[in-house]
């Protein structure tokens, strides 16, 4: 590290302390978010004075020309005077930067240490070379498994890496408004983890991750990428979830009817397998009880039992519908091989395996069933990690559109089964290697406990103030100055903070164009309309529509 080569960009101003300082910046020499240094001296424990390099990050810049009176602008405009001809001051823009101190380094050792003595006012502020900044970041990160994610914002030459170990065990949240670059970021991380053969499970609602399947042979020859469609497979252990599903998806039931439903679940044993099959079994059994006015349900009238039967029928119908929708979506992507999600209770290794990426394609499912599916799945996988005989390796779960699975209580969503499960997995994930990555456009709508368990955050463009507040609330490392920057970020620019880095950094995420799902691409409605041809049924309707409307138009009779 040759500090002599660094360009001087300003001067430290008075009133310094050990956590921040101000400096006056030469025009155009640095930007917000830049990492800068100043040489200082600190007392050593042996009592002598040692020179150190203090590192800091520009957290805000103010520019002002305090000497320009606003009134003057009026005259300049009215008289069409060029300000440069007048005696008005034009070059007095003063740039004052606020710097958050990151720590100090000693000569020849790039380990950042906390500063315990204020920097020297009047000292020169320097702009360190890109190599040195990168070296500092890497050395400071001290990571055995760094993951490359992009470069320091507007300083392309400084590559940014984050710590994989913290990432997979300490949980990460990725927030930002729609289109801000969350998914691009996640794919970047997944790419890196795939190369490390780290197992991952992605809950994909939109098919944003199908690119991994398409590109598997080419980009990840040593990995397995599996694509699953959901299968609501249950066992008697999942009674509660089944009850919730039927209760919420079916008709609303009175208390006696509910009693009957829960006794029914109690009585009708089921080893494990498809939920639909189980519901069909329940319908049959319930009919039997109703028709023989059974002794086993003395207090319940057969009429009530039939209500439950009908409700079960409703549930079955809805579930079939969702399955159908999901199926149709899959069919559109005929080139991709979808497999039914294996039973996580009995064959977890088919889902979590070294080097394997499993994508669970949830398109078409409503919140509640999707939540049930995820809850049962994660519950089972987690169990396998908890057991002494770990049947599966540690893995990372990636939850897209997380507000669907872990809504805040204030959202007043019906108690989703996934909330409890994810809460459990995330709280104990550190012990058992079940890291979670939650992605959401609306952090303010997320379960607070879960969001605050994420020790690292990557935040992209965010305009909504509620979401900004939620983001800073859940983070210990994202500063107010950082959050001010959020509305101004462009696509793919994020602020990364927490344990995956050592201090918050504005980053330009590397965009992996080849990981985009070719099949869906961006919806192009205009060309869809251009190539539109009416369906046969519509054509038929249109053919007769005119005739019918003629009839109605001449009908003068009043209805009796």
């Amino acid at each position, binding site marked *: 590290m040759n500090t002599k080569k660094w360009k001087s960009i300003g001067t430290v101003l008075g009133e310094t302390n050990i956590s921040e300082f101000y400096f006056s910046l030469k025009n155009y020499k640095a930007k917000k978010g830049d990492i800068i240094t100043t040489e200082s001296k600190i007392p050593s424990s042996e009592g002598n004075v040692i020179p150190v390099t203090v590192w800091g990050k520009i957290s805000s810049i103010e520019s002002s020309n305090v000497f320009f009176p606003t009134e003057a602008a009026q005259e300049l405009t009215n008289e069409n005077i060029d300000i440069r*001809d007048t*005696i008005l001051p034009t070059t007095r823009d003063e740039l004052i930067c606020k710097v958050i101190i990151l720590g100090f380094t000693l000569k020849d050792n790039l380990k950042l240490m906390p500063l315990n003595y204020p920097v020297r006012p009047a000292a020169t502020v320097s702009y360190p070379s890109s190599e040195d900044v990168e070296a500092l970041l890497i050395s400071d990160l001290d990571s055995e498994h760094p993951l490359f994610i992009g470069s320091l914002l507007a300083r392309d030459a400084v590559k940014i890496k984050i710590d994989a170990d913290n990432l997979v065990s300490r949980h990460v949240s990725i927030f930002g408004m729609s289109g801000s670059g969350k998914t691009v970021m996640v794919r970047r991380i997944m790419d890196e983890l795939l190369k490390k053969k780290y197992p991952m499970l992605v809950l994909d609602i939109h098919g944003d991750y199908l690119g991994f399947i398409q590109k598997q042979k080419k980009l990840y020859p040593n990995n397995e990428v599996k694509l699953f469609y959901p299968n609501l497979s249950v066992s008697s252990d999942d009674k509660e979830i089944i009850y919730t599903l039927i209760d919420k998806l079916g008709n609303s039931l009175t208390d006696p009817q509910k009693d009957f439903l829960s006794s029914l679940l109690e009585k009708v044993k089921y080893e494990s397998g498809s939920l639909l099959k189980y519901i069909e079994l329940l319908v049959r059994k319930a009919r039997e009880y109703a028709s023989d006015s059974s002794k086993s349900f003395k207090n319940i009238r057969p009429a009530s039992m039939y209500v439950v039967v009908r409700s079960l029928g409703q549930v079955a119908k809805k579930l079939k519908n969702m399955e159908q929708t999901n199926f149709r979506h899959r069919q559109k992507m005929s080139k991709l091989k979808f497999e039914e999600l294996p039973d996580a209770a009995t064959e977890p290794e088919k889902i979590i395996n070294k080097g394997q990426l499993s994508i669970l394609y949830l398109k078409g499912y409503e919140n509640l069933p999707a939540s049930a599916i995820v809850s049962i799945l994660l519950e089972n996988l987690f169990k396998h990690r908890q057991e002494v005989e770990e049947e599966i390796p540690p893995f990372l779960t990636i939850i897209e559109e997380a507000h669907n699975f872990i809504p805040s209580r204030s959202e007043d969503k019906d108690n989703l089964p996934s909330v409890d499960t994810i809460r459990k997995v995330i709280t104990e994930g550190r012990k058992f290697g079940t890291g979670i990555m939650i992605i959401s456009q609306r952090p303010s709508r997320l379960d607070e406990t879960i969001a605050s368990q994420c020790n690292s955050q990557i935040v992209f463009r965010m305009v909504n103030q509620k979401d900004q507040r939620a983001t800073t609330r859940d983070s210990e490392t994202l500063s107010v100055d950082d959050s001010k920057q959020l509305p101004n970020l462009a696509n793919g620019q994020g602020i990364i903070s927490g344990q995956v880095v050592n201090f918050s950094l504005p980053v330009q995420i590397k965009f992996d164009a080849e990981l985009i799902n070719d099949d869906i691409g961006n919806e192009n409605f205009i060309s869809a309309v251009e190539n539109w041809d009416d369906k046969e049924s519509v054509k038929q309707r249109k053919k007769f529509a005119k005739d019918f409307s003629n009839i109605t138009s001449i009908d003068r009779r009043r209805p009796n």
Partner: protein
Amino acid sequence: MNNETDIKNKIKSNSSLFTNFVKNAVSASPKVQNNFLDVSTQVALTIQKILEDADLITNLEYKGKDFWSENKCKTSCFVDGGVDKTSIISSAPLSIRTGSYIVKPDAADKNREFFEESMVFLGDLYDPKNELYDFAEDDFDEDQMLNKKKDGARIIFEAVTIVKHILLNRKFDYCFLHGPIEATVMPFTVMGFPTFTKFAVENMLPFYNKNKLNAEARHFIHVYLEALNSIKKSKFPIYGIVETSNSAPYIKNLLFNYKSKGTISEKDFKNTLATIKKYKITDSHLLEIILKSGQAIKPLEIKKQIKGFSVTSGSAWEDKMDSFPSVHIGYIKINDHSAPIRIESLNPSKNLIKDYEYILATARLLPNYGFPVGLNVVDKFAKIPNWMSKASRKYYATHLLKQAIRSKDQNTISLAVKILSKKVRSWRNRPLGGLAR
């Protein structure tokens, strides 16, 4: 020219003369008000007549765009001082500084404008040993003295700053001071007004050592006179610019001249002066009514230090008064809605109209305030931090430091750093020391 109705209307339509009168005579009956209107109208008409007779009113030209493109090559320097205004015990050090804003519009960015901290002083400006004025007999006296010390300090520093520019042979086309070019020194002739410290004088006027700087030589009156005499020798025009005048030196002198010529009788002269005094009519009041926007009155040569006041009479300084240079005083009315500004110089102007037009143009850049914008700029710069806005305080901090660093003098730097490291409050309470030691 204004006729009687014009004048009356002007007075009524919110002239400072009328508002001032109404303010001072809230309960004035309509009769009293009418009388005031009649009197001031009559005075204005008379003075207007005399001004015309003497051909003292002149029209200035202002063509904003053209003016500035023709004058962008001129270098102007604007000077103003700032004193730590907060109350300090009289023996505590003052902090004071003067700033210069030097600008040559058509120069390249790097050389276009300079904000110079021409003089900074923190420490014992006045000599405690020579402070004959003992501790507060009462608070009022103490305050009075303190204010005088501050004023005296500012006046000296401003003058000395200009002297410094002259000595350094700066190539200015103009130099402007915020305030009178020659202050009335009478207040500083009071008994017990302390002398400056030797260190202070040596730093202010390095060439002024012929008297070995004994106590008398270090008194305000002597030091100031020395500074003024140097200013008078300047090769470039120097003007002091005063916002409003609360006395009537111009009118009085005008009348005096006419009396001396015999155009006005002794009696008329005396009575008119008495009227002006009774009705509290000032130069500003009257000229605001008489002049139109863009008009100026050519300067009169006026003696500022007048012998024979009770305070000075018999004092050691009585004779010194006569040695002070006389001042050329004129007025320019910048816009329709503000009082004319007073222009003072120690020498007669070589290019009066050109100079006044330059002043007019700089003041038109503050179209409402109607005061040379360069002085407004330097005023902001010169202020001492504790009454500065946050932004300019930061600016000041930067500036001071840059300056200190440029000087490469370790003491200056460490002083600057010390000042900057202190919170505003502690700055003024800082212990004795600093530069003065």
